């Protein structure tokens, strides 16, 4: 029997505490099928087995708490480690660049990774902590994103309350497709920029060459 079968079975028997704990642990970074559990919980609320508001509140609380544990791990466990690593490989400059990039874009990253590109969330939590990203701002995007995730999946679970497993698998594929697409676009953009800059260099060399010829 798979892990998700086991977890969903315990969700059926013990209810809310299992949901809270699984979402908390999943948010810290242990891969548990959190989305599927939210869908199942939504289905259980539709059938009157669980209370909708309790499910929403405890799910959000569990995942927000887990995210903040991840942030804290990065902040107090990770920063010292990252400084040591960066000193060791002599690229503190790179770390600084990453920090600046994160401060500029992390808002969108935090928010989107809560509900759309969920597999990236634990990494983003830890990097936010490691780079010393403002905690109140992290918390703001985190709460907004997690609230959207919980409401979205619980409502989908209610809507498709008779085919939770299938909807969960379909959404899982969809989410991984988005994650793959994101990486492909980011890396493709980087490669394109490299090729463009190298062709511009060549053009510059060529024009310099013709200018030198004309001068002669």
């Amino acid at each position: 029997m798979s892990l998700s079968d086991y977890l969903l079975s315990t969700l059926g028997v013990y209810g809310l505490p299992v949901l809270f704990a699984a979402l908390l642990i999943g948010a810290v970074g242990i891969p548990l099928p959190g989305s599927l559990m939210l869908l199942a919980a939504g289905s259980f609320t539709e059938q009157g087995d669980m209370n909708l508001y309790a499910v929403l509140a405890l799910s959000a609380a569990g995942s927000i708490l887990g995210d903040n544990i991840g942030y804290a791990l990065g902040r107090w466990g990770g920063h010292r480690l990252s400084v040591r690593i960066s000193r060791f490989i002599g690229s503190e400059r790179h770390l600084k660049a990453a920090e600046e990039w994160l401060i500029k874009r992390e808002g969108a990253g935090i928010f989107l990774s809560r509900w759309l590109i969920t597999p990236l969330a634990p990494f983003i939590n830890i990097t936010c902590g490691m780079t010393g990203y403002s905690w109140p701002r992290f918390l703001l995007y985190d709460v907004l994103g997690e609230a959207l995730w919980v409401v979205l999946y619980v409502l989908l679970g209610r809507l498709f309350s008779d085919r939770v497993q299938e909807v969960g698998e379909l959404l899982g594929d969809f989410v991984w497709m988005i994650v793959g697409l994101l990486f492909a676009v980011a890396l493709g953009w980087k490669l394109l920029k490299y090729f463009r800059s190298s062709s511009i260099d060549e053009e510059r060399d060529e024009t310099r060459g013709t200018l030198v010829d004309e001068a002669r």
Partner: protein
Amino acid sequence: MKKLGWYQWLLLAVFLLAVIVTGLFAVRAVRRAVYWQTHRDEQIRPWMSVRYVARSYRVPPHVLYQAIKLEPVPRDRRPLREIAREQNRPVEALVYELQQAIKDFRANPPPKLPPPTSPPGQTASPLAGATP
């Protein structure tokens, strides 16, 4: 054109990997969606309760309870895994019996949904006599 350094080769490799992963998951998602269009039933899993299976397969719950020799329990949240453990048998056997019951029910659908059989000794609902 500039020659590719090891870093560019690595970027290119990861880029291709990302494209392949995106494609694979896109194909999987589309296949699932197409399958979903043509097959109405989802696979019975150990985490599902009898009521969930009944709902998913649009079969009255008492038919399924009857098939696995249990009294219908209102608000029964026990997953099949738990019931199988109580009955001291593998969950696959339970799933098989449920599938058979669903198949039988669909082969001979009752003309009208029969009322759930109340357990012996239980008094009828007080509302039952009130309606003409």
